[in-house]
């Protein structure tokens, strides 16, 4: 029982980090109907900004995190301007943007390899990682709880932004039909920039937490984002609650498999769940059915 509770907590904390990244995927997908594989790059950018602000800039964690979030958000806008907008303006086929995003992902990764080197870096111990005991039932670190809470806060913030603001309304409208939203007077280019900024910002949060947990290196983005992408697909690409629930399912599945079957079955189970979901419900758990849109 103790082991079970422990693995449950491990799974929730892992799932919460996946959720921050998966939501970014879903957000972009909901508006532009393509999966932005460069998303992991924004996470790495956020991580490195935070690292250098803390190490060389002498900033405190609040300032460093703020810089990382803004930096990751802005770089997402820049990537959209440079790589996706020209394609978007020339063709309605989103497959080209998907391919461009794969290229951008490699470009971002290699920019870091060339400029700062491939070595592993650890953020200074700015976030507490002391063990915390739950009524003698399980032990987790203060960091895990903090990452869970932060994920909840940011996801709730995102929900508020989408429901309560004008741009949120525009994004929701665009997620039904971008073209029509444009015809209704929404500035589509600005809308897309905002979507990318928000997605990049969330990736930045994930980047900071992942760097603290697993150290920082240029390939960090590609490692964890595959799982986050799978989570977004399971939940239904384009659906934000779906992305969150898919992430939690995935986090729990990973930890329980590793804990009770074998750690070598972990990825087998993860991708097994993906395939079963796609067979039973191709649009994911919360995805909009394609037919409805047509």
């Amino acid at each position, binding site marked *: 029982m103790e082991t079970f509770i422990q693995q449950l907590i491990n799974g929730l904390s892992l799932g919460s980090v996946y959720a921050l990244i998966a939501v970014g995927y879903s957000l972009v997908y909901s508006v532009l109907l393509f999966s932005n594989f460069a998303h992991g790059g924004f996470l790495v950018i956020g991580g490195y900004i935070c690292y250098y602000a803390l190490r060389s800039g002498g900033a405190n964690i609040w300032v460093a995190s703020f810089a990382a979030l803004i930096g990751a958000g802005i770089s997402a806008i820049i990537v959209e301007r440079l790589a996706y907008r020209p394609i978007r303006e020339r063709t309605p086929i989103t497959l080209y943007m998907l391919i461009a995003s794969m290229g951008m992902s490699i470009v971002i990764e290699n920019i870091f390899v060339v400029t700062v080197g491939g070595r592993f870096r650890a953020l200074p111990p700015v976030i507490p990682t002391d063990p915390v005991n739950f009524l003698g039932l399980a032990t987790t670190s203060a960091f895990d709880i903090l990452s869970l809470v932060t994920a909840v806060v940011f996801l709730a913030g995102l929900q508020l932004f989408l429901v309560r603001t004008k741009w949120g309304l525009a994004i929701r409208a665009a997620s039904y039909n971008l073209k029509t939203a444009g015809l209704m007077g929404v500035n589509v280019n600005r809308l897309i920039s905002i979507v990318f900024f928000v997605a990049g910002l969330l990736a930045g949060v994930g980047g900071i937490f992942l760097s603290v947990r697993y150290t920082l290196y240029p390939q960090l983005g590609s490692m964890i984002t595959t799982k986050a992408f799978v989570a977004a697909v399971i939940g239904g690409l384009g659906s934000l609650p779906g992305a969150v629930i898919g992430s939690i399912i995935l986090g729990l599945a990973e930890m329980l498999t590793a804990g009770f079957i074998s750690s*070598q079955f972990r990825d087998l189970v993860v991708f097994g769940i993906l395939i079963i979901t796609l067979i039973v419900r191709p649009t994911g758990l919360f995805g909009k059915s394609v037919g409805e849109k047509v």
Partner: protein
Amino acid sequence: MRKVLAILSLVIVVLAAGAAFAAEPIKIGYLAALTGDYAQYGITEVNMAKLFVDEVNAKGGVLGRPLELVPYDTKTRNEDAVNAVRRMIEVDKVCAIVGANSSGINIATAPIVADGKVPQIGTVASNPFVTVDNKGKVRPYSFRICFTDPYQGALAADLAYNDLKKSKAAILYNVGSDYAHGLREFFIKRYEELGGKIVADEGFRETDVDFRAQLTKIKNSGAEMMLLPGMGKDMALAIKQAQELGLDITIVGGDGYAEFMNEIAGPAMVGTYWVNHTYMEDPAMAPIFARYKEKYNDECKEFVNGTMSYDAMTWLVDAINRAGKAEGPAIAKALEETKDLKLNHATLTIDPATHDPVNKAGIILKVGDDLKAKFYKKVEPK
């Protein structure tokens, strides 16, 4: 007049050739990663080898000829290493090669040095297949100066059971790593022979970074110590996550230990034990490290690589002297026959059946409160 000129030029040519012959250097290739992730290790090795060559040349060289170092970059890629070794043998005509420091590269270059009849000495290439092929036959031109992974695994078992008195062990290893498999297999063998019990044997995959599920199992297994037969980052993350889960356990690892782990795992590193080849404060190495600092104005931070490079060069020059000529086959024979050679970090005897050092002492390092790996004890195999 034309005749005089012809004779004169002939005399000059003969004289020049004679002078060149007398001073023709003995070329030694050095294979190291000089760019990429592992560049720091390779640069230290080449720097140390250059220091050694300068010292030998200052004393009059070897067999009356100066030494010349021919370093090449592997970029930690097998194909680049293979090309470099071909060039060394065919174009530069080296008589022997020192390096590289990784097992994979030495295994890749083994057939080429065998064809070219040029002996190669691996520095910290500890996989058994570096010197022995998969049929168990010794590779005639491949040697190493470090001990092997199986041997290291046995040393770790001795340390855990006899010295630290831990009789229940857990293992957390990368299922895709030959290095980890070697250490793990021989740790288990030796540990069970001694009377210890393996209570948890957990694997992870190359790209994994989260080990909390496995560590939770280890925590509940009642293990008293945990073997981490891995490389720097994986082990540092495991140590950090173990601490976060409140898993208070004695940790023993091998020569995959690296200084940067302290940056990742922080205070969780304190009290961990590492089987290694040598140590920073080794009094026998102190004069060499001091000369290194004087020449390069930098500490020899990658001290294991520095030590192995200097001592491998020493070993090679000793073999050339014994062979009496700078030719591959003769040098290989002399390397094979090495017995009780006093090096700086150890006394070297080579087993002709495996080209591995025999009965080489291991050094146990223990990480202190200041996060520095310090000499804990020297273990002589029993």
